């Protein structure tokens, strides 16, 4: 009897386990769909655990890239003229470092000038990791709740809008980029003041939705934030219209937008801490986040 019971246990325990695992994933998914958030404590804990690895890996990869650019390619030529080439490599390395410093300086100066220009209080952060999947667009930064960063805060650079804070941990945060299909920003076309919603389209592209057919827009028009919603200050550049499509029927026309910021090469960002949506308001939100 006991043996039979054991075999029955073996027979059903494994399929039951598979069902439990998949069911718990589905429950987690439904929780996220309903509340637009996960298990906050566990999420923060795991981000805190994994992000230092990303930080180290990013700095290692930057160093390796620097060494490759400045020195390793020249090792090859050293065989021909060791002394001269070595000196050249050293000089080039120095030159490269100085150039890198100059570029970083210029970039940070622009960021600083821009920071002084905007009235809201902002926090500068460094990008330490990118999205592991190709379907979604997000980046990890080295600032978190301890620095005053909260969910829903706007993230910008001197070139324009980058996205908004999606998840936070004490020392790190994850930004949802404007190119992600989940992102939506209330915007206006600078020249005609036509209102529209900028939605992510993946692959460094966005689309303008709910742009009235009657509104005149042309390729090259600049799109800026409308300031509605409170997260993004009014007038920040979102991007430039690349394609306008008036074919088809309906009230709206389609337009494609290229973000003003190259989101594939993000290094430093500014998080606007001045104004953010209260958490209660976020909880109640369903569907796409419209800022």
């Amino acid at each position, binding site marked *: 009897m006991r043996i039979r019971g054991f075999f029955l246990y073996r027979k059903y325990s494994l399929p039951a386990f598979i069902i439990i*695992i998949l069911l718990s*994933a589905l429950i987690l998914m439904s929780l996220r769909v309903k509340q637009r958030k996960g298990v906050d404590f566990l999420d923060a804990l795991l981000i805190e655990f*994994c992000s230092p690895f990303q930080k180290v890996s990013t700095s290692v990869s930057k160093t390796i890239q620097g060494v490759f650019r400045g020195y390793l390619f020249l090792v090859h030529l050293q065989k021909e003229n060791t002394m001269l080439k070595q000196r050249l490599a050293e000089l080039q390395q120095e030159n490269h470092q100085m150039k890198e410093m100059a570029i970083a300086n210029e970039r940070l100066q622009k960021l600083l000038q821009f920071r002084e220009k905007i009235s809201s209080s902002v926090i500068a952060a460094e990008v330490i990791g990118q999205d592991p999947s*190709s*379907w979604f667009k997000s980046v990890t930064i080295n600032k978190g709740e301890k620095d005053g960063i909260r969910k829903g805060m706007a993230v910008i650079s001197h070139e324009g809008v980058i996205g908004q804070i*999606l998840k936070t941990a004490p020392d790190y945060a994850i930004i949802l980029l404007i190119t992600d299909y989940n992102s939506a920003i209330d915007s206006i076309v600078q020249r005609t003041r036509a209102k529209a919603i900028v939605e992510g389209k993946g*692959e460094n592209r966005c689309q303008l939705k709910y742009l009235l057919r009657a509104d005149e827009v042309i390729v090259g028009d600049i799109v800026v934030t409308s300031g509605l919603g409170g997260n993004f200050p009014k007038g920040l550049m979102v991007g430039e219209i690349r394609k306008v499509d008036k074919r088809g029927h309906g009230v709206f026309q389609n337009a494609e937008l290229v973000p003003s910021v190259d989101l594939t090469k993000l290094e430093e960002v500014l998080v606007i801490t001045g104004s953010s949506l209260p958490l209660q308001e976020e909880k109640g939100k369903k569907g796409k986040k419209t800022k």
Partner: protein
Amino acid sequence: MRRIVFPLFLGVLFLTLQTTLLRSLPVQRIRPDIVLILTLYLGLSYPLISGGILAFFMGYLMDLFSGNILGLYTFSRPLIFYIAQLFKGRFYLEGFLSQFLFVFLSALVEGLLILILLNGLNPNPLGNLYPLLFTVLLPQSFSTGLITPLLFFLLNKDSLLLSNQKRMGLRERG
């Protein structure tokens, strides 16, 4: 303990590489999903229970560091793991081509599953994601398949990991 901690650590390491080094590749579309390769490897060599938990955890990590709000990988990764379990011992997966095809097809299946779930769970239609099937999913799956034999070889070489798993697999299966 080590047979659980080691793949966990390996998962974190692979995720770190995927979010940093592999993201800085010059060609944006060729970004192999090495966490998926590890999940499939576990599917072929790990027992059902411990491997399932590991796959669940890796999916959770993927969701955590991506812009994905819905937690789709937490569901898809254990599912892919169990699909790999079905293949275990039934197909010859030692050669380059078979390993490539196995992972390439698995990556495609997962991509399609994610697309279906995204469309099903979102209140608004996501028509603009369909072109990504050809521009992103195909190249990514292809590059993932291409580096699979190398990663499988390296993971196989780690005799500690494999022998422990095999031993554990036998024990769990009774």
